[in-house]
């Protein structure tokens, strides 16, 4: 590396750490949205770096659909224990039981959309004034227009046509009572950056990202895990094959990739050769061209 020159990953790291510190400085009650996926794991890692040797000055919030991979939950609890971080769980099952949302029926039923209500309720109940998320602009085209500091009105809604201009590295987190912010510190990272950073920093990730045998079935070209609550069509038959997760979300919408990758090096080679975006396997995005934009407007992650 040339003198007085950072490589691009270190520059992205510095940018993200700067954003996280702005959050801690500008807000009263921040929360970090933790899904157990690689992006939120990186957020936690960056937060540890940003405030070291102090502890992370905000709790981790997990919106639990009740349809999570078991490995995700184990990983989550272990990480919180190691860091001594506070964990707050918002339960979608509770929102269903309280009658706030109605469970979808049918083959493509997913609790993904229901998360929005639970998320907004959790934010309100704990009076969080900012929720830090792992969204990246390269993931999806509505996300490409997202700010680092994204304002939400008192209903938690995003108004994409009326976003605050964001210049240089000056972030405007001012708001009225009842409003909140979503902040995306790794906005400028790509999927490859995330994997290279995990590799460079030797960060622990859930075993789901590595190849493993699993009972799966094929639907609309996407391999899904045959969890007990999944409703299969008559012609969908279960196979046991070697797969891995490229993204981790709710089981009902997480497409699995057939893969033999059992190390970070293998995963990186695989990503480099892949011709499909990581959200290509996400059933939640395939609902319509503006699926992500619509969910985000209502207050989704």
């Amino acid at each position, binding site marked *: 590396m040339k003198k007085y020159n950072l490589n*691009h990953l270190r520059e992205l790291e*510095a940018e993200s750490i700067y954003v996280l510190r702005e959050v801690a400085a500008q807000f009263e009650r921040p929360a970090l949205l933790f899904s157990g996926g690689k992006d939120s794991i990186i957020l936690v890692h960056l937060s540890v770096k940003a405030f070291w040797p102090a502890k992370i000055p905000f709790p981790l919030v997990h919106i639990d659909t009740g349809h999570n991979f078991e490995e995700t939950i184990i990983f989550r609890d272990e990480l919180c224990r190691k860091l001594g971080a506070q964990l707050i769980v918002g339960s979608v099952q509770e929102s269903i039981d309280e009658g706030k949302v109605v469970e979808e029926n049918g083959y493509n039923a997913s609790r993904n959309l229901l998360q929005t209500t639970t998320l907004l309720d959790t934010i309100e109940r704990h009076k969080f004034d900012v929720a830090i998320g792992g969204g990246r602009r390269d993931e999806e085209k509505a996300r490409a227009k997202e700010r680092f500091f994204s304002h939400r009105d008192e209903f938690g809604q995003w108004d994409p046509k009326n976003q605050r201009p964001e210049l240089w590295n000056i972030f405007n987190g001012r708001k009225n009572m009842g409003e909140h912010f979503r902040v995306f510190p790794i906005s400028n990272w790509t999927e490859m950056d995330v994997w290279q950073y995990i590799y460079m920093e030797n960060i622990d990730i859930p075993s789901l990202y590595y190849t493993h045998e699993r009972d799966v079935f094929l639907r609309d070209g996407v391999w899904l895990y045959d969890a007990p609550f999944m409703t299969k069509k008559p012609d969908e038959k279960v196979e046991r094959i070697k797969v891995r997760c490229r993204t981790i979300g709710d089981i009902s919408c997480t497409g699995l990739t057939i893969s033999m990758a059992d190390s970070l090096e293998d995963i990186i080679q695989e990503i480099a050769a892949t011709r499909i975006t990581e959200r290509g396997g996400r059933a939640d995005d395939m609902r319509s061209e503006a699926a992500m934009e619509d969910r985000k407007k209502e207050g989704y992650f």
Partner: protein
Amino acid sequence: MMEEKEFSSKAYLDMELLRFTTAGSVDDGKSTLIGRLLYDSKSIFEDQLEAVKKASIKKGNEAMDLSLLTDGLRAEREQGITIDVAYRYFATPKRKFIIADTPGHVQYTRNMVTGASTANAAIILIDARNGITEQSHRHTFIASLLQIPHIVVCVNKMDLVNYEEESYEKIKADFQAFAAKLAVKDVRFVPISALKGDNVVKKSTNMSWYEGGTLMYILENIHISSDHNHIDARFPVQYVIRPQRDEYHDFRGYAGRVAGGTFKVGDKVMVLPSGFTTTIKSIINHTKELEEAFPPMSVTITLEDDIDISRGDMIVKENNIPRIGQDIDIMMCWMSEKPMRLNGKYALKHTTADARCLIKDVKYKVDVNTLGKILDDKNIGLNEIARISLRTTKPLFYDSYRQNRKTGAVILIDEADNTTVGVGMII
């Protein structure tokens, strides 16, 4: 191509980051150019291409409309316009790139300004048939106003002028004459056809008279490490770290991002506004102790002496302090539909400091098309650029924007609705 050869993590980790902005309208072939850069660098995925193909057919287009890749919002797709800044990412084996793609219409000056604020380079597209237009003037002016260090003028649609050298040379000469009036440091020219792919990623065989590199070659090789100010040491304190743990009981660290110059362990430093001097005890990044820190690193600094320091203060070198004052002149771009209030008060943000300010005077307004000064009009509305005098409630520690884009920038916030209404470059 990546799938043919083993992907190298080592090479990936060595890459630098270049941020550039593209301003222009669909007519200039901007979307085609971006599409070409992404496509030829293998950064478009199959499912994205599929989605664009489907959407193009739905809209009744025969050819694939690559602008659909960047138009992320429903309204943009429906109206066929770009409303907002869209960020696109791609990498070659040499560099990683972030494109801030901004619309070029006159009413979207604010988006161009936004995209330009963090860019190392600006691509200015000129249609070879039309030559320099008012829009080219506007784009170049904004690039110079925001002090984008490098400008690459792409003379596009060379295929439509038979790849003639004369058309290119004429535009080049016209541009140089115009740019001489502006503060632009590094201007390069490249004749291209984004549609046919000439000189974008691959060297054109149609323009043997052109001896320079392709656009991609230029983007990969522009020298960017000197884009930061490495002379004037500036460390705006962002956050004070005081661990509530026994083993770090006396630890007090000042977290922030180096905005200029270098800081080394053992350096004598001065803290503003108090003026106290002390020595740097350590510079840390997580568990690593560093010898020195430079822009754009985020670090935590500890000092030998116990001094009262809080967010908004600035650590500098005793022999090189920034300007300190409450009466500040800025070039301002107005970003709000609500017009600026002369003699109005606004909240102001500068580095990590918060203050309030009073707009005392409009010295002149700039006609962004002719660059002429308008002296008799003090009404400033959306997308207008003007020289403004401010009075702040407390002293700021600042440099001119020309010297330092971090310590020379401010934003103005409407205190009634908290929106960012103005952005300023300190003169």
